[in-house]
């Protein structure tokens, strides 16, 4: 199996099979990360799609200074925040190709998401998700979020205090 870096260099050469493999490795992870930020299935799907298209178009510009996952999560984060801004302004152009998800199924799944993470504000939830679900180091998280490592640690500290009450 090719390493993530080898895959990116193949994608940079417009290798469609490599892109499919890359999609299989990352699209669902990106979708779940976006869902952690947006708490909205349909918007998270759009973010994941836009992120993967940006990976296809931007692979040539990837310089290998960070891990591939850090690069992709960074793109996803920017897309998710763009989406939040567009939603707030109400000027999002709906993607006509997208299939509207079944609202009842979405609601049931949203209810199934446990309450522990829901008690956290979004900046803390994001750090907890990237640490424990994605297994990223505090340095990598600092790179994705564009904040100092000390701020990552402090968000985790406050998240832990809050979750200690829930998990007690």
């Amino acid at each position, binding site marked *: 199996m090719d390493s993530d870096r080898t895959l990116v260099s193949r994608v940079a050469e417009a290798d469609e099979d490599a892109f499919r493999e890359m999609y299989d490795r990352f699209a669902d992870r990106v979708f779940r990360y976006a869902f952690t930020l947006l708490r909205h299935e349909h918007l998270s799907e759009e973010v994941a*799609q836009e992120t993967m298209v940006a990976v296809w178009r931007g692979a040539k510009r990837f310089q290998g200074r960070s891990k591939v996952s850090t690069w992709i999560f960074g793109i996803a984060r920017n897309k998710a925040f763009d989406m939040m801004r567009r939603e707030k302004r109400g000027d999002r152009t709906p993607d006509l190709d997208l299939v509207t998800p079944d609202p009842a199924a979405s609601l049931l799944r949203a209810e199934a998401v446990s309450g522990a993470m829901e008690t956290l504000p979004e900046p803390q939830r994001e750090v907890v*998700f990237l640490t424990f679900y994605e297994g990223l180091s*505090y340095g990598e998280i600092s790179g994705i979020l564009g904040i100092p490592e000390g701020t990552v640690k402090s968000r985790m500290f406050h998240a832990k205090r809050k979750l200690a009450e829930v998990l007690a």
Partner: protein
Amino acid sequence: MTDCERIQELIPWYASGTLTEQESREVTAHLVSCEACQEELALALRLKRRVEADSQHLPRIPDAAWQRVAAEAFGRPIAKIDVGSFLLGFSFGANRKRGRIPVYGDLRVLGRKVRLFNVEREEST
């Protein structure tokens, strides 16, 4: 900042196994003799297990999303010719993509594709 405060900041990433070797050794050495930090580690491990368990309930990206990504990235195929085999072959094709028609040629060697050319033309209306 006390030793305990500094170690407690690192403990979540000790629990997730992403500290550097040196940081990890430092935390282990401290934990041996510090009950308060041992409790912090127990809390971080509970939190990790909870996040992993919660994540099982998160929705997954729908299968159809790939079709939309592929159409946006490559365009919708309108013609394709394959010559040769898995070991050595050529592909020529054309897609329709946002009012343009990219025409491409790929060389295939041992399953790896190398793009030889990719020319985009305006779609005639």
